[in-house]
């Protein structure tokens, strides 16, 4: 897919939680095609302590409204600027779309389970919307520490069935996503997951044991985002792969994780 450097204009910023902001970006001309699981490298302006772009996964693309949504967690100085310093009307420079997306269902009746944790739920919204658009019904399993850390639930509910776990039991079933009773009751042909590494490893362990195909979205620290600097490598059965170019989505069969 052709990649672009675009000056996107901030149409709206939505405070989704105490530390998460949804940026709704638009462009003068039609946004290019992007697929679920791909990401954007966002330039951070006006920061004395950072230099590199920040890789942010594509949360949603609304081609009718010509909007790209990025769900950003304030983690360091770069993302703090994105979540606090950026205002409607501002321009955010993005390189996009980058990396490879999740495998999509081949037919509408394939059952896909989309498992997200924390801000890692972001790419699953766009993926769920695409699955629904092809006539399927995705199942979302979303986990967070508490009810207040569950992000964009009402959006997910538009596109499929939503199951929730919280560590403190304030919403849904108590525990981690892999403890949810859904996993004992139903079977799926593919599990697509994005979230903290320990969560993705637990999901991968479940998938390997249940003999279900599973793809994870990795977030190794990147510099270029283009496969040039070789900083974000992950060890795989094919040697070191660049998460930015060969991923970020990889099948767990490729990884050398101890499951």
């Amino acid at each position: 897919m052709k990649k672009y450097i675009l000056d996107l204009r901030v149409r709206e910023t939505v405070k989704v939680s105490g530390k998460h902001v949804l940026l709704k970006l638009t462009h003068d001309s039609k946004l290019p095609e992007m697929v679920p699981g791909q990401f954007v490298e966002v330039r951070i302006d006006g920061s004395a302590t950072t230099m590199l772009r920040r890789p942010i996964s594509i949360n949603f693309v609304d081609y009718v409204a010509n909007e790209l949504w990025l769900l950003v967690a304030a983690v360091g100085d770069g993302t703090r600027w994105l979540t606090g310093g950026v205002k409607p009307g501002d321009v955010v420079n993005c390189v996009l779309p980058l990396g490879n997306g999740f495998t999509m269902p081949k037919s509408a009746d394939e059952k896909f389970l989309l498992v997200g944790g924390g801000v890692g739920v972001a790419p699953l919204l766009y993926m769920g919307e695409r699955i629904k658009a092809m006539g399927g019904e995705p199942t979302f399993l979303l986990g967070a520490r508490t009810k207040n850390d569950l992000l964009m639930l009402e959006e997910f509910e538009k596109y499929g069935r939503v199951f929730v776990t919280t560590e403190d039991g304030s919403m849904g079933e108590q525990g981690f996503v892999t403890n949810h009773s859904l996993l004992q009751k139903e079977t799926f042909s593919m599990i697509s997951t994005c979230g903290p590494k320990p969560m993705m490893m637990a999901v991968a362990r479940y998938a390997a044991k249940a003999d279900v195909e599973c793809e994870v979205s990795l977030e190794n620290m990147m510099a270029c985002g283009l496969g040039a600097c070789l900083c974000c490598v992950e060890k795989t059965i094919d040697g070191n792969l660049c998460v930015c170019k060969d991923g970020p989505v990889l099948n767990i069969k490729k990884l050398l994780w101890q499951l």
Partner: protein
Amino acid sequence: MAALNVNINSLELKNPVMTASGTFGYGLEFADFVNLEDIGGIIVKGTTLHAREGNDYPRMAETPQGMLNCVGLQNKGVGYFCDHIYPQIKDINTNMIVNVSGSSPEDYAECAARVDALDKIPAIELNISCPNVKDGGMAFGVTCQGAASVVRAVRKSYHKTLIVKLSPNVTNIAEIARAVEDEGADSVSLINTLMGMAVDVEKRCKTLSIGTGGLSGPCVKPVALRMVYQVAKAVKIPVVGLGGISSAKDAIEFLMCGATAVEIGTANFIDPAITVKVAQGINDWLDAHGCKSVQEIIGAID
């Protein structure tokens, strides 16, 4: 429109802007963003005689206006380059230059000989300055004898333009430059990265997998500029300047300090189209100042 062409001995560049090895892949990764043929030279990823896996992750730490890396020369070896990558890049109409590294003078010489046989590669950049590998690399670049021994070996097997990339992690970089000039290098490029370190205070550990890494980005520019100035005064061969260049103004500073050409590295990560913008910006500056050729500003600072 000023004349931007420069020569590094017999190597003709359409403009003085090249890419720094390890920051631009094989050029192809940036083909969506720039017309590769508008860049004076593309120096591709460091290549060694045998494949190297590189160092463990994490390999990168961001610093104020810079970054540390300890990639460790990950590459599939010169054989893979010749068979699989060269066919994809040989018809790009600019100077495609291979950065050659090794762990002994014999390794360097053999790798260089393999590249010498490739028609469309008019030059190599000899990397005697990588701070991220235990064997070879910077070990050769920090003494005059070590640097000379590699250049002497390569000069026997390599017959085209030979640029030697110098390490800044030395007490007197001009001495090293003179040592490689004496062995027949056609040009020197500098600076490679400055050795540095980063710490993760929460985890109470070193951030990078091997502890140390090479610092690059705008934060190193003043050091690079000083070294380019010193080396340009010390040698007769053309000097290629690099280190933190991220604008046409930065590039012009290096040219004025005596660099015949420049390389752009880390800035490619922030703006993948920066190379052509810098080349255009140099032209605009020359036009605005009534200069007919870039030659008028090379070494303009006494």
